């Protein structure tokens, strides 16, 4: 599987993403945000960072980078599109995912490992995981508070689009395991067809033993397993 890892001015997790993707057998290459042709890619990853300085709103300016037309085309074609942290924020701003990421409840920048519970395997984030499995992955964000208008969030829940929730190690999901105020403890959200998804924690930072956890690898394995067969 060939993967484009998009680099915006201010992106800072692209090499970590490349490293994790190569660990699961993908051929990953960086793509500058002014790129207008991703026809060589079977999937795309928007990694973390502070694209365009996060000015105005996180992801607001990045969504108009030239490469986003190609990201939308791949999403429409059913190819896997994964947004990590800032990439998740960009996908929400672009309307490829529902909702928005607000400032954390408590206004504190959170940088620590969190546990997330797999809610559904119907997305490119979770296809290779097991429902109920918990993953320990670092969270590193100020604007990670997933929010949507109440009616829209009900619809998102009804369609099982919340694919990862903040939990404890045993998989208990409640207010005490919600680090940032996200509705429904949502840590990872997919579109209706499951091929576009984003998560706030950084799975690439939990992709080998020396990093303290390999739990994030299953996210990349899921991504690679979601490549459209004709494209592989």
């Amino acid at each position, binding site marked *: 599987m060939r993967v484009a890892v998009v680099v915006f001015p201010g992106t800072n997790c692209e090499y970590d993403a490349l490293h994790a993707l190569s660990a699961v057998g993908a051929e990953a290459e960086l793509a500058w945000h002014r790129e207008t042709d991703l026809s060589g890619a079977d999937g795309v990853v928007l990694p973390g960072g502070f694209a365009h300085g996060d000015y*105005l709103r996180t992801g607001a300016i990045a969504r108009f980078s030239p490469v986003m037309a190609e990201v939308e085309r791949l999403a429409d074609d059913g190819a896997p599109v994964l947004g990590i942290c800032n990439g998740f924020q960009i996908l929400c701003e672009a309307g490829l995912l529902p909702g928005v990421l*607000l400032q954390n409840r408590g206004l504190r920048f959170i940088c620590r490992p969190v546990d997330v519970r797999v809610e559904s395997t119907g997305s490119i984030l979770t296809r290779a995981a097991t429902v109920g499995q918990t993953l320990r992955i670092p969270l590193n964000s100020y604007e990670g*508070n997933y929010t949507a208008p109440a009616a829209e969030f009900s619809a998102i829940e009804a369609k099982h689009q919340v694919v990862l929730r903040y939990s404890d190690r045993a998989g208990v999901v409640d207010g005490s395991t919600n680090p940032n105020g996200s509705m429904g403890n949502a840590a990872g959200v997919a579109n209706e067809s499951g091929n576009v998804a984003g998560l706030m924690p950084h799975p690439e930072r939990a992709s080998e033993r020396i990093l303290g956890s390999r739990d994030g690898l299953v996210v990349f394995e899921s991504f690679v397993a979601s490549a459209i067969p004709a494209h592989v």
Partner: protein
Amino acid sequence: MRVRVTITRRDEIADPQGAAVERGLRDLGFGDVTGVRINRIIDLTVDDDDEAAVEAQVAEMCQKLLANPVMEDFAISVGTPA
């Protein structure tokens, strides 16, 4: 023409900054204060004297970039020609 855009977060969308400022005001002794919201003002100049055309253009800017339709509303106030 000078234009002021006011972008407000919808009431149903949480405002963690507003909530923190509200707590601060209460700590300062302003116990009667409620409903603190932090909003955004963007001033800009459009090189056009047609008020209706400017307003329409700025509305499009708001819909596409300046505001996020998921969580924000906007109001446009077109001023005197620059």
